[in-house]
């Protein structure tokens, strides 16, 4: 059976083109890969190659023809023993003919069109809802240790490294220097330089190396000296770590933790003070954790290291030295994805996380003095976000204030506001109000820096405003 050569598309959007030139004539021998014609559109020209071996039987569309529809037969190629008469036969019922391609050619453009504009009835399926497990019970009589957050993080890593030989730590100054912020103190001594690895100053590169190692089955903890420097690595975090499981149809996952201090420290100016909570928590495929207390820091980091997905673990330099009680349990793991109600109240819900909690908790104390009972929620995890806990609280209080150090536009507070509006609109007695970092690069001068960050007074004021007080 003679084989038809069809008018090809240069791109999925091309519908027709001009047949500008035939480079072979009827009767010429052609083999796979020979250029037989040139076609062009207003955007480009393209060479048509023969995909089969044989004789060019009949040219169906002469050169110089404009607006030839994609998938129109333009020529026939004859195999051994076939003649021009066969070519005529092949050309007759053009659209129905069996070409070397098996889809009916004439149907293809419509099919492509249909694909680009799906039937209106087709809706995306419901997004799955996630509900996280509750925190583990702490048996009564459990001894509590008062340790710093820095120590809690270190203990979490050390325990997980003892438990699983595939876990290792890499980053700048994590080994011999004992950590730029001393979070990895003592790990080199216990685990050696095979598992506690000082990297060159090369964030993009070592993030990629970490992701590659994770794809090969290891469980890296990649420390960024601060998340400000991770902007150099964000392509590997998002394009490689977060998306590969999906793009591989579930074959190739990536169990990796990216951790380090995030947000504003003190007097280090704009390039070293950014809060990336909103950036990372937008990305499907990532989990984002940002603890405030020492116990959460330990329990959540252990969960993050065990998680089979990439986890962004946002710490805060201003919290490293803060102490808190951590239960002395062999294996204290807090499930990712559950917010904690830190303080119960009935008048207004204050929502924050990480260092934002310092303003929020102090504000709750102030508000109590004025008889306003604030409920304080520590999100702890930013993705997946514990909508359930937030909505339940807002339905109870009818008012909400979000507190974050990051910028307001497209911030976490904006997302919280939207979710509260979507799920608890009828319960609201006042608009949701956001307290946030100001819309400026972080200034260096002490007084300006203070103004750029949220304050206890701003939280108190916002809470009173939504309570109409």
């Amino acid at each position, binding site marked *: 059976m003679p084989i038809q050569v069809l008018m090809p598309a240069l791109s999925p959007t091309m519908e027709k083109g001009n047949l500008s030139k035939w480079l072979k004539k009827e009767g010429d021998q052609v083999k796979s890969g020979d250029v037989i014609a040139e076609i062009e559109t207003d955007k480009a020209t393209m060479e048509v190659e023969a995909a089969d071996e044989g004789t060019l039987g009949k040219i169906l569309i002469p050169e110089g023809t404009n607006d030839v529809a994609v*998938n129109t037969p333009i020529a026939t190629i004859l195999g051994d023993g076939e003649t021009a008469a066969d070519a005529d036969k092949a050309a007759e019922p053009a659209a129905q003919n069996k070409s070397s391609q098996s889809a009916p050619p004439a149907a293809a453009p419509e099919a492509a069109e249909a694909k680009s504009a799906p039937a209106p009835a087709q809706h995306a399926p419901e997004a799955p809802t996630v509900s996280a497990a509750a925190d583990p019970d702490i048996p009564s009589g459990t001894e509590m240790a008062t340790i710093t957050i820095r120590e809690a993080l270190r203990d979490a890593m050390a325990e997980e490294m003892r438990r699983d030989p595939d876990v290792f730590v890499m980053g700048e100054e994590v080994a011999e220097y004992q950590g730029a912020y001393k979070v990895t103190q003592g790990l080199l001594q216990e685990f050696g330089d095979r598992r506690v690895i000082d990297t060159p100053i090369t964030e993009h590169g070592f993030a990629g190396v970490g992701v590659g190692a994770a794809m090969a089955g290891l469980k890296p903890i990649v420390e960024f000296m601060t998340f400000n420097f991770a902007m150099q690595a964000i392509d590997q975090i998002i394009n490689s770590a977060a998306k590969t499981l999906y793009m591989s149809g579930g074959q190739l996952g990536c169990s990796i933790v990216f951790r380090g201090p995030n947000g504003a420290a003190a007097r280090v100016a704009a390039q070293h003070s950014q809060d990336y909570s909103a950036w990372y928590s937008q990305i499907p495929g990532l989990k984002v954790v940002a603890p405030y207390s020492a116990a959460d820091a330990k329990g959540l980091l252990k969960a993050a290291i065990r998680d089979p997905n990439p986890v962004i673990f946002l710490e805060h330099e201003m919290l490293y030295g803060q102490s808190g009680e951590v239960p002395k349990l062999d294996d204290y793991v807090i499930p990712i994805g559950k917010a904690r109600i830190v303080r119960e109240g009935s008048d207004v819900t204050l929502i924050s996380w990480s260092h934002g909690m310092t303003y929020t908790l102090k504000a709750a104390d102030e508000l109590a003095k004025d008889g306003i009972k604030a409920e304080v929620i520590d999100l702890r995890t930013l993705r997946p976000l514990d909508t359930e806990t937030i909505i339940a609280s807002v339905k109870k209080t009818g008012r909400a204030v979000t507190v974050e150090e990051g910028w307001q536009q497209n911030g976490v507070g904006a997302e919280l506001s939207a979710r509260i509006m979507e799920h608890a609109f009828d319960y609201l007695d006042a608009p949701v109000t956001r307290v946030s970092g100001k819309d400026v690069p972080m200034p260096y001068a002490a007084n300006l820096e203070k103004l750029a960050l949220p304050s206890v007074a701003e939280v108190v004021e916002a809470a009173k405003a939504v309570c109409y007080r």
Partner: protein
Amino acid sequence: MAAPKKSAAKEIAQDKAGGASPSNVPPFTKEQELGAFREMLLIRRFEEKAGQLYGMGAIGGFCHLYIGQEAVVVGMQMALRDGDQVITGYRDHGHMLACGMEANGVMAELTGRRGGYSKGKGGSMHMFSLEKNFFGGHGIVGAQVSLGTGIAFANRYRGDGRVCLAYFGDGASNQGQVYESFNMAELWKLPVIYVIENNRYAMGTSVTRSSAQTDFSKRGVSFNIPGEQVDGMDVRAVKAAGDKAVAHCRAGNGPFILEMQTYRYRGHSMSDPAKYRSREEVDKVRNDQDPIEQVRKRLLALDMTEDDLKSIDAEVRKIVNESADFAQHDPEPDPSELYTDVYR
């Protein structure tokens, strides 16, 4: 920017016209010649079919064909052993077939169907097979170099003697993370071979217009990484260079760079107008240095006949046609797959 005009891209492997066998290339056995011929032909026919399906609108988005470069992956694969890993960029169909992945699964991914290697969620540039130790298929130029270095890191961490091949092009060679990776790979003596497929054009920009150092085998010099230029159109030369580099890595000596001097016959992607090079340039490489034609001539000079080779071609065409058929009739992914595989 006005740079001094350099001469046109230099001839690749100038002295090797028509498959003449230079004395320094170790010969293949007949079995090796036949194996390489079949593998390269499978890739060529597969890519020709993919080009056709793209022209018909059955394949969407971007589609980068490997035609002309077949000897690189086929020769390198012959130098590997079970367990060694492969990672590459977006021009990945040939690598997958060379790794032993099924034509059906690759073609069905190109058409976005559920039987594709990524269940239709990845497309041309994003396919993987853990079973065949193929780690993708990556769409961000240069990203696979750091990732491949990380896979080699895992090999060294485990001490399992495996070697990772990280393929990238002359274009990706100018990305910063490539050099960050070179530094760490040599510092930590990681078993990774950087295979630079120099096909002379980064999309439409020739190496002379984009690269200050056009000898890519020297790109590791400041990190003390040894490198070699290889005639990437001669599958035997590729295999020999691969053997040497693999032995270097396997012995714990750290990374190795192989610059494969090759050529892509087709455009960068299907919608490439190809105004940046002449038809004569393409035809010259095609007529004088085609990797498959070289092997064909050697096979005919042995005791193989045209009919023997035609029957191999027929067998390969059958596989490819079946894959095209499968790829057009396999259903699209079920809508319920929208939300799967985001998290484990």
